[in-house]
């Protein structure tokens, strides 16, 4: 028909222009970033390369389902499109009269039923394997917090090591400023953390998940694992990484405003490198172990507090301390200037406004004391007050 042809021509030329535009990369950002090894690839079409046996099983299952479903889909719709072509009034086809057949109904109920059972059999094996977290070589607790991960090595080599893993502050800032600039190649954008989780290769690692506040989820696609981190409860999952390298994941359960900004970085290293790392960490912890009864002076503690602020507070309260939008300012704030230090300590320990200001009780007494002292003595605030770690410890319930 004439109108159909003109519609076809118009849409074809439109598609052609869109395709050309896309193709020339004027829209595409493919040139400005590379694949992230252990993380997503540019224009990735399928599951990531598997680094564990479970991930390999998942890939196999997915290919199995995809191929089977595509074959069935193509077969069924070949019949439909054939019918659309042949059995149309414009070809003069007259309608048949049949409208039921018990035999046919039985056949096309039983065959899909059998296919579904055949699909479920290999899946069952993998479910059972994924759930078996027994006999782990290393057990690590991952605690989801708003909005970072805390890792504690609780059993196996490295027991006792604990640290918090936060998204790189510069990358968070970059997000606020509209993302990486054109030409800036940031392959690990939104994946970079300060302290990655380090595990040895070829060892069964059991990850116990829990949370401090709301539900988060710990996931590493290359390992094929994902486990909700539920406050008040412990869940677990496991992996055995077969290749040394850096693997990346992100929080996978909506947990509030910074949900997109609490990535997971697992560094898989050789057994010797792991032992070396454990030793190094233990030494660092011993050195850093702040004496909780130490009495700090103003200069030292505000210097420490500046670091803590840059790590944890700047994303919301900003470098100038004035916050913005719903975020309250610290510069000139009543609770900061208050002679009663307990007020501001309580805000830091317990949060405020229903979690809009999260609780920071996961930070050490020294860090909390330091950052409060910093805010009380920076920008236009010059209270001269010093908050000691002991002050914070006293208010922890």
């Amino acid at each position, binding site marked *: 028909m004439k109108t159909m042809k003109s519609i076809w021509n118009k849409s074809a030329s439109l598609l052609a222009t869109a395709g050309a535009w896309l193709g020339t990369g004027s829209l595409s950002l493919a040139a400005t970033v590379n694949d992230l090894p252990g993380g997503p690839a540019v224009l990735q079409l399928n599951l990531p390369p598997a680094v564990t046996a479970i991930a390999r099983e998942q890939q196999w299952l997915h290919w199995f389902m995809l191929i089977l479903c595509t074959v069935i*889909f193509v077969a069924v719709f070949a019949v439909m499109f054939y019918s659309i072509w042949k059995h149309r009034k414009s070809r003069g086809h007259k309608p*048949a009269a049949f409208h039921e057949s018990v035999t046919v109904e039985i056949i096309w109920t039983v065959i899909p039923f059998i296919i579904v059972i055949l699909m479920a059999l290999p899946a069952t094996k993998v479910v059972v394997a994924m759930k078996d977290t027994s006999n782990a070589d290393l057990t690590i607790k991952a605690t989801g917090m708003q909005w970072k991960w805390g890792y504690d090595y609780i059993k196996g080599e490295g027991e006792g090591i604990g640290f918090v893993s936060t998204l790189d502050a510069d990358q968070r800032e970059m997000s606020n400023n509209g993302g990486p600039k054109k030409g800036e190649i940031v392959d690990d954008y939104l*994946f970079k953390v300060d302290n990655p989780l380090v595990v040895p290769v070829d060892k069964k690692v059991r990850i116990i998940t829990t949370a401090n506040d709301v539900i988060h989820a710990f996931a590493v*696609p290359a390992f094929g694992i994902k486990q909700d981190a539920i406050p*008040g409860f412990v869940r677990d999952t496991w992996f055995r990484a077969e290749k040394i390298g850096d693997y990346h994941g992100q929080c996978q359960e909506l947990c509030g405003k910074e949900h997109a900004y609490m990535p997971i970085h697992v560094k898989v290293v050789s057994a010797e490198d792991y032992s070396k790392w454990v030793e190094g960490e233990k030494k660092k912890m011993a050195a850093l172990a702040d004496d909780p009864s130490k009495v700090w002076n103003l200069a030292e503690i505000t210097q420490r507090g500046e670091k803590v602020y840059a790590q944890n507070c700047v994303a919301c309260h900003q470098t100038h301390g004035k916050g913005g939008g719903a975020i309250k300012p610290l510069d000139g704030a009543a609770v900061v200037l208050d002679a009663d230090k307990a007020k501001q300590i309580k805000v830091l320990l317990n949060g405020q406004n229903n979690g809009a200001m999260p609780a920071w009780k996961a930070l050490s007494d020294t860090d909390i004391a330091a950052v409060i002292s910093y805010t009380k003595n920076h920008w236009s605030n010059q209270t001269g007050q010093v908050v000691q770690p002991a002050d914070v410890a006293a208010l922890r319930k």
Partner: protein
Amino acid sequence: MSAVLDHHDHAHDDHHDHAPTGWRRWVYATNHKDIGTLYLLFSFSMFIMGGILALLIRAELFQPGLQFVNPELFNSLTTMHGLMMVFGAIMPGFVGFANWMIPLQIGAADMAFARMNNFSFWLLIPAGLMLASTFFMPGGAPAAGWTLYAPLTLQQGPSMDVGIFALHILGASSIMGSINIIVTILNMRAPGMTLMKMPMFAWTWLITAYLLIAVMPVLAGAITMTLTDRHFGTTFFNPAGGGDPVLYQHIFWFFGHPEVYIMILPAFGMISQIVPAFARKRLFGYTSMVYATSSIAILSFIVWAHHMFTTGMPVTGQLFFMYATMLIAVPTAVKVFNWIATMWQGSMTFETPMLFAVGFIFVFTMGGFTGLILAMAPIDIQLQDTYYVVAHFHYVLVAGSLYAMFAGYYYWSPKWTGVMYNETRGKIHFWWSLIAFNVTFFPMHFLGLAGMPRRYADYPMQFADFNALASIGGFAFGLAQVYFFFFVVLPTMLGHGEKAPQRPWEGAEGLEWEVPSPAPFHTFETPPKLNAAANKILA
């Protein structure tokens, strides 16, 4: 055709012959056709509002980095987009079709409870206004996702309570509407129309109404427990008080899974009427279709935890829910086969209703297959909470439910308005929507497989290309719907178009085609005498 119209010498009061006029006609409406129109207009408005929210989301996600909104507002956008589309667009839309078509199809004068019908509709307006107003409240609109998981909901500002109140009202409206539909269908069919001779649209709505009555109260329970946790000292979902956040998920999804079948079964019914009309051949396997729909409805109650595969349930639980979910594929496949068997050896033409119906079968089945893939628990562990899930449910809800409603609009609007829509523009709407839809949502499968999480305001650079593509498609799709309203719907509402015959579609069967176009204000005031197949009126 005096068999179905009031006689002028009928011994009734004079006002009975005239349709009420002015604002009273709409505010005091008890006529199923008027209430149907109100529901459809409300649904379309919420569709546009929800669509604008979606375009704000896609605008932000067009490129990595935050350009337009802060992350909290982004979370509100995704939450409200979901709530508005589910509770404001899809559900009221299908109720609108039910109101218009069920009495006509079963030969009844109106719905059983005409005044409750009015109340069911008008409840939607304050509820919709409340939902929309949450954006302007301190703290912004609810930002916990349309699924409103605890304990994140316990942290939300006052808009969460307003949202809960709105949901209660919407739920009450749905329950009342369902009661109306069940009573009407069970009691007011014209003599000779047994249940097994009833049109498929009536069947699917009968089953959907039972589902609604069963599960809307469960949602009410979940959100009330959230409300009391927030304000009245309970700790159902707060672990600090001994509660369990996962309990919320169980209660919510016990509602949530049947809810998605509530959103698709009426669509199945519409397709089951449209395909036979344009194939000029009776629906293949009517009995089987009724059984398949019933099986889907019953099975929908025992699969809810497939939304919870990563919460840490024991092996037995994972396996049971995986098997039960995969089982639903069987009756669904049977329905697809029956539709194709209806087309087979028919004599098809492809006016716009048939284009949307065939498009539905094709694209909905794609969504069905991704659902089957997600049902496999080991695969779901990788894909849960990623864009693969977003792709899946948009395929079944947009290319499914929405396309069916478009098909129903094109099919039945000549009966509603008395004029034919412009066929060329209808076809433009179809192809434009189909292409734009696939450009928007097909890449999301890849994003999900690559690991891009849902509900993310910003994302790693590697996901940029497919996100840009999806955003372009999204805007194109939105534009198509604006085109639809201004160039297809509005002209017919204003009466511009060829006069529609009583039966515009050669192969269409059913009592709705036995009345004039437009359908008179009152139809079937006395029960019609039907032929043996209960699809024609005997003179």
